[in-house]
């Protein structure tokens, strides 16, 4: 990594990374007596691909849930675009432009792929209830615009052929892709991916990696992802946070992390597969 400044840095492959978008300060999260996250701080910068890794039960998903508002930490601050973020409901966080996917896929099984992705744009639709009710004017134009945007995402993720299929019938790998599509439909500032490649075969993993990279590349979307698979993470991400037992044990470029002794001891040596 080149020199890190207030305004950002330039990555190894030469992309310019911007200022801090999301900063997590001394986050502590407890469930009853169990400490899931212990005093963790790190930041996410504009345009970068940031990974959180760690063994099972390290608190990665909890961290993502804190960022997306599903959990509220007992201590610490979430600072978004320079402003401390008050405790928010997940839907309020989503409306700030933070979209996410889930480790075990949360799609609307009863709806078609197209409808699923359309839900990602619900917050982009402003037309009032009445004009929608009579399907008229602004509402219709809006519907068409949003539909066009969704079609672009469908093309982008190469899922044209399953547009009308009910999501419940899709294979696992495609479901993951539809979930990504729905998150993208919201045109997020920050995209949170919870183990986007879990349970995929090599080919599917490659596809997904390609999509993540091109999302970042084409839309400039900031991405924070959790991954179990070390190899994938090291190739994809610009910076990596390593967690173990709810604590942060490493933070830096993949190269830095790879050579960090604590990380090797706690994670690489033990859980690498």
């Amino acid at each position, binding site marked *: 990594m080149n020199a890190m400044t207030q305004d950002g840095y330039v990555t190894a492959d030469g992309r310019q990374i911007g200022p801090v978008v999301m900063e997590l300060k001394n986050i502590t999260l407890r469930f009853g007596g169990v400490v899931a996250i212990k005093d963790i701080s790190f930041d996410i910068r504009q345009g970068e691909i940031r990974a959180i890794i760690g063994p099972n039960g390290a608190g990665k998903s909890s961290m993502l849930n804190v960022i997306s508002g599903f959990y509220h930490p007992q201590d610490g601050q979430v600072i978004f675009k320079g402003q401390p973020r008050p405790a928010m409901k997940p839907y309020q966080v989503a409306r700030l432009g933070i979209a996410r996917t889930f480790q075990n896929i*949360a799609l609307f099984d009863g709806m078609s792929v197209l409808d699923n992705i359309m839900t990602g744009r*619900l917050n982009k639709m402003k037309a009032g209830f009445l004009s929608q009710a009579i399907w008229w004017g602004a509402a219709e134009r809006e519907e068409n615009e949003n539909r066009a945007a969704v079609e672009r995402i469908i093309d982008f993720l190469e899922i044209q052929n399953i547009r009308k299929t009910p999501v419940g019938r899709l294979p696992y790998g495609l479901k993951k892709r539809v979930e990504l599509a729905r998150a993208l439909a919201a045109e997020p500032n920050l995209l949170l991916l919870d183990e986007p490649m879990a349970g995929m075969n090599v080919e599917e993993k490659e596809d997904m990696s390609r999509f993540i990279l091109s999302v970042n590349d084409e839309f400039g979307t900031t991405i924070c992802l959790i991954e179990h698979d070390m190899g994938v993470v090291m190739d994809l991400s610009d910076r990596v946070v390593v967690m173990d037992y709810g604590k942060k044990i490493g933070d830096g470029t993949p190269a830095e992390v790879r050579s960090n002794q604590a990380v090797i001891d706690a994670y690489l040596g033990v859980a690498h597969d």
Partner: protein
Amino acid sequence: MGIQNGQVPFAHLINATFGTSLHHFGWTVPAVLAVALTALIMVLLAFLIEKLVLQHLVGQEPIILFMATIGLAYFLEGLGDVMWGADIKALDVGLPQGISDGIEAVTGQWFGYGFFIDRLDLWATLIAAMLVAALVAFAQYTKQGRAMRAVADDHQAAMSVGISLRFIWVMVWSIAGFVALVAGIMWGTKSGVQFSLSLIALKALPVLMLGGFTSIPGAIVGGLIIGVGEKLFEFTIGPMVGGATENWFAYVLALIFLVFRPQGLFGERIIERV
């Protein structure tokens, strides 16, 4: 997950009683205005129920929510009693009642026996059709409808795309309340507005068992099957077994269905997700 299981909506039917009774709250207002006012109150009530009761019970055992709803129903019934008294009120929102002369005359000519069709039933059918069409259109083509379907499908995912669960809950309760209001007006026109209206729930249960608890087409088809089935059974077999078979038949039919399709005709397959 919490709220919905417990919502066996006793309160919902009381809404119906509650709603239609408003018509008689001291003031006299035109029927249309009364209905509109009642719908408004229903939204308010939905909001209050969510805010004051359900919100505090989030994540509780279903049985607790169930008890809460029963308590709520009693409370509303008591409130209704205090505000409007328990006497039976005639409800006249301008729906016609009684035999349809046209149908009687026409069928009389065709078959030599004039059919009896209640005009109220004809109107009810028309209004119900419009209501269902409106509901379907709402669910399919509006932003709120989409959000509603999304919530029904997966809460977590719904929240992640920026849908406020509370808004949807209030909306669903309001819509359910409105449907209950329409049903209440129909039944109320038939028997007068009274607390016995809540007994119709006894009839809704087999319909729901038959059609599936979560399916709108199921409710409609289930209702029709039970309606036709019980009448035909009473007409054909009834005289042989002493009659009054309707409730018995409805439940037996529903139970038979349950054996073969536990989720009901249109219900979603029951999968316990762990």
